[in-house]
């Protein structure tokens, strides 16, 4: 049995009356590539946001390498409004962390809508992500008493850029890169935080089939090289089927299937969710 890295248990995320994620449980083991798929608006990004501390889920628990990083139960205004299940399962004191604390524990992510530091060079975008492992304080850093650390940060950054072949473009403005390379840069930036678990939110969005193929290879390559576990959201089915060990499928915030690519591909519930049971229902769902 391989060891568990990310454990998501009975997560429900409710925005007012809207239940974006409904009692979702997932497990990701060390060294796996797991995909999270589902139609638009299914709640995939919201699930990532609950894991990374951007949102505080209304109910449920998330643990990372055995440590509880998120735990909550409906309280306050949500107590009455709560429409999910297991409302009494996590009565203990809520646990929550800000995104930076979670990143420091070893979960790094990329964003569906690319979020690079737009006024900064390619090099600096990655360099900034080494800041979290600093040992200098603002005083020693200002007066350059941290020269060794600064040197190490720069070397690490350059090395990462070389691995992905972006070192030739290191002085370019990050946002001047072609789209596909911006997505890669975002992944490299996440790698610079030295994560154990990498969350990728639609890394192949907007890429052509060839670029998507290359990205798939790239993901496998960095997974091996940096000893990572990868959890990705993706709409490109070829990519998902190619590289993932397991797949979770969600629709309307609920898990509808889980299994190997072959299992999921032939699951009638998945086919129904993607193709729509009939036209009128599909329209309702899209609204």
């Amino acid at each position: 049995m391989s060891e568990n890295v990310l454990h998501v248990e009975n997560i429900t995320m409710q925005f007012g009356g809207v239940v974006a994620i409904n009692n979702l449980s997932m497990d990701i083991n060390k060294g796996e590539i797991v995909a999270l798929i589902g139609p638009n608006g299914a709640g995939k990004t919201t699930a990532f946001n609950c894991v990374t501390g951007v949102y505080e889920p209304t109910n449920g628990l998330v643990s990372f390498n055995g440590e509880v990083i998120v735990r909550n139960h409906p309280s306050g205004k949500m107590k009455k409004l709560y429409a999910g299940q297991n409302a009494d399962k996590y009565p203990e004191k809520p646990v929550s962390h800000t995104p930076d604390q979670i990143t420091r524990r070893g979960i790094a992510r990329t964003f569906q809508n690319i979020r690079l530091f737009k006024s900064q060079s390619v090099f600096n975008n990655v360099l900034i992500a080494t800041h979290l492992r600093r040992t200098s304080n603002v005083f020693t850093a200002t007066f350059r008493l941290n020269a060794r650390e600064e040197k190490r940060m720069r070397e690490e950054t350059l090395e990462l850029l070389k691995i992905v072949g972006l070192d030739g473009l290191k002085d370019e403005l990050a946002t001047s890169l072609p789209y596909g390379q911006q997505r890669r840069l975002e992944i490299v930036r996440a790698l610079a935080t030295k994560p154990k678990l990498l969350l990728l939110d639609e890394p192949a969005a907007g890429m052509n089939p060839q670029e998507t193929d290359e990205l798939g290879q790239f993901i496998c390559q960095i997974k091996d090289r940096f000893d990572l576990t990868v959890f990705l959201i993706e709409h490109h089915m070829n990519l998902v089927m190619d590289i993932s060990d397991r797949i979770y499928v969600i629709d309307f915030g609920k898990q509808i299937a889980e299994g190997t690519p072959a299992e999921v591909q032939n699951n009638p519930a998945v086919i129904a969710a993607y193709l729509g049971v009939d036209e009128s229902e599909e329209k309702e769902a899209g609204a």
Partner: protein
Amino acid sequence: MKKNTKTIVNLVLLALLFLAVWVIERTSSASSMLITVLKKGAIYALIAVSMNLLNGFTGLFSLGQAGFMLVGAYTYAVLTIPVAKRVAVYQMYAGGAIHFQLPWLVGILLAGAVAALFAALIGYPVLRLKSDYLAIATLGFAEIIRAIIQYEKLGPITNGSLLLKTYPTFKSTLFPFAAAAICIGIIVLLINSTYGRAFKAIRDDEIAAEAMGINLFRHKQMAFIISSFFAGVGGALLAMYQGTLQANAFKAAMTYEILLIVVIGGMGSVTGSVLASFLFIACSEWWLRFLDAEQFIGSFQVPLLRSGFRMVVFSVVIMIVVLFFRRGIMGDKEFDVEGISKWCRRKFGKGGAKA
């Protein structure tokens, strides 16, 4: 260009600047307009750069600059008035409550420290909220602190709404230049350090910065405190320049002046703020003075020119800048050796020196 060469060339330019100031000082009379502009411009440059650190480099919008300057100016003045002269200064308050005098350097450093302390107190609740609240809170702080300083019951310390004077001042133009150069130098070092990069990351994209492990609150608090420290130091220098000090002069309009300098110079450009400070002070103290005086050509009185017209022209300039030159003189570029050589290369083709 190598990093070391760059530093050396920049330092040489700075030395030349000091030499020029020294020569100007030796050759012109002490009351000349040029000297005034140089003195006040240097102080405003420091204050503008400190505001730029927050507004331009960290992306936090604060409107408290006048408040922090006021705190700094009063801290300095109150603590450095000679004991023997306190009876004369605190006439209404029986010589005041403080019976010691600190050296001027300690006074200046404390001016920054007290301003920084206020920033820490304001920032603690406010910086956890959305950025907009900082503008409101700092504006409120600036108004309240001015009222508090003038509060009669505090008279034994602040001299109420009366003047503070006879504290140590400076004569040489080189003094404000040196003080500003040191402070701005420290700010530049900070901006180019790993912490400065974190500030810029927060400015560019808060969510991404946080996802990269940058503690937003801690870094915003840091930028706010450091910015306020230097605003406090700037306030102390301004008090020294003026020779007398009254809380009433530090109105919100002063903050807007500095904000205008920052915008004209370019958000995120240190040299832009410095250039704009001297330009601004030259205009307001010197070149545009004539707008405030009635002028006659023969017996014909030039219309519009009267006291206060300068401010009208200023307001129009602000509007034009905000509407058409939002990136300011420098944008977020710097006016240094590297910037100039890059600019030359762009301007005169690829033939220029290769960096």
